Structures are given as C-alpha cells and as structure tokens.
C-alpha cells in the first residue's frame, strides 16, 4: 500500500494544469493551479461597530454577521477637513466564527481581507439584494 502512494502522486502531475498563461507549473501548488483571469479582492481597515450575529445555514454552516466602519477624511470646497464614515456589512464563516464568538472585538480596530459577494432575500413578494464582504482574513490592530 505504501508503495502505491508515490505512483499516485506521479500520476497527478500528468493532469492538465490550468496555470497562468498556459505555463506548466508544478502540480499540487495552490498558487499556480488558481485561474487568475478573474479577481475579487477587498481590503478594509476600520472599527468593528456591532456585536456579531450568529446563525446557521440549512446546510449546517455557521455564519457570523457584523458591521465595520471605515473612516475617511477629505477637504470640502472651503478647505475644511471633514470626516465621513462608511459602514460595511461583513459576513464570516469557518474558523472566523469561533474567533468572533470568543473575542469581544466590538469597537476595536481591525483589518480585513475578503471578497465582495451579493445575495438576495425575499421580503414578502419583493426580492431584496444585499452586498456583503466575506471575510477571508482578519487582523486585530
């Protein structure tokens, strides 16, 4: 049985490789097997502004929802500095649910890396769309 394992790994290198530009990169590399014709990437640095809300999807996946705000300063027409806050809706699943359950992060500065997703729900007869940022990585600053 042990001898058959290396043979399998050799076989896997023969599989077609969807690396960037059609170049054959070593098989099994997570970087080179990803197709990079499309990309969806969001970075946010700001304050977490709400306690996370947890719920479970019908599939059993646990999801946490919270909001964070990013602060922006700009100059108005008279040259005064103005502050503006943008509120972002965030969603997290997987190991981040556990992190958010255990750590009281509200009001803390965090940095987030994730992707922009859109989903919809039905309110009565009406279809309503929500955009949220799905957390891929989170750092407490």
């Amino acid at each position, binding site marked *: 049985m042990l001898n058959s394992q290396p043979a399998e790994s050799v076989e896997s290198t023969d599989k077609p490789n*969807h690396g960037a530009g059609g170049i054959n990169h070593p098989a099994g590399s997570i970087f080179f*097997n*990803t*197709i*990079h*014709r*499309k*990309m*969806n*990437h*969001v*970075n*946010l*640095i*700001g304050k977490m502004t709400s306690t996370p809300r947890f719920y479970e999807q019908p599939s059993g996946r646990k999801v946490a929802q919270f909001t964070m705000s*990013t*602060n*922006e300063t*700009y100059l108005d027409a008279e040259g005064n500095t103005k502050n503006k806050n*943008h*509120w*972002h*809706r965030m969603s997290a699943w997987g190991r981040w649910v556990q992190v958010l359950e255990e750590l009281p992060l509200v009001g803390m500065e965090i940095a987030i890396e994730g992707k*922009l*997703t*859109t989903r919809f729900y039905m309110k009565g007869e009406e279809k*309503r*769309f*929500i*955009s949220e*940022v799905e957390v891929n990585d989170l750092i407490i600053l």
Partner: protein
Amino acid sequence: MQTLKNHVTLIGNMGSAAQITNFDNGGKVARFSLATDKYSNKKENNEPEWHSVFAWGNVAQFIESYGKKGKQLAIHGRLVHRTYLNKEGKERKVTEVEVRHLIGL
C-alpha cells in the same frame, strides 16, 4: 492614500455597455456591471458574481469609448454605500464600487 483603508480590486468582464450620465457642470459618470467568478478555483458550476461599478471624470470618458459588453477590465477603487428611492418611492440601499484606476485588459 484614500483607498488605503478601503480598497477593492476586481478583474472581470463588463455585463453591458456603460450607462453614461453627463452633468451640467461638465461632470460625467459611467455606470456598469462587472462579472467576476463566484468560485475562483473551481472550473465547473461557476456562476458569475455581479458587481455594480461606477466611475467619474476621465475614467468615465475612457469607459464610454472603450467599454462594451464582454470587455475585460481590471479595476482599483473603493466600496461605497448609498440610498436611493425606487419607483414606488421607497428607500433602498445599494453597495457599489467607485473606480479610481482602471486598465482595459
């Protein structure tokens, strides 16, 4: 530096030609939708994720001439939220990406 704290990068295809709005003061806004893949490294069952995107000024001018359905774009910008009144006069919230820099691929 404004996009340091609020930064979005998207590479995808345009869903349709941009909708151009010209303002009296010479301003210009181009609005369009951009499709990226929902699952970036699964080949099968890959439905698009649609993003609504808008751009001002020179970038809008570029999109007006270059933008067509299916054109591939790389976008750098920020996430912006706003409210508008729909046909029935009810308030709706939308999340959009405001383009800062753009490359036609």
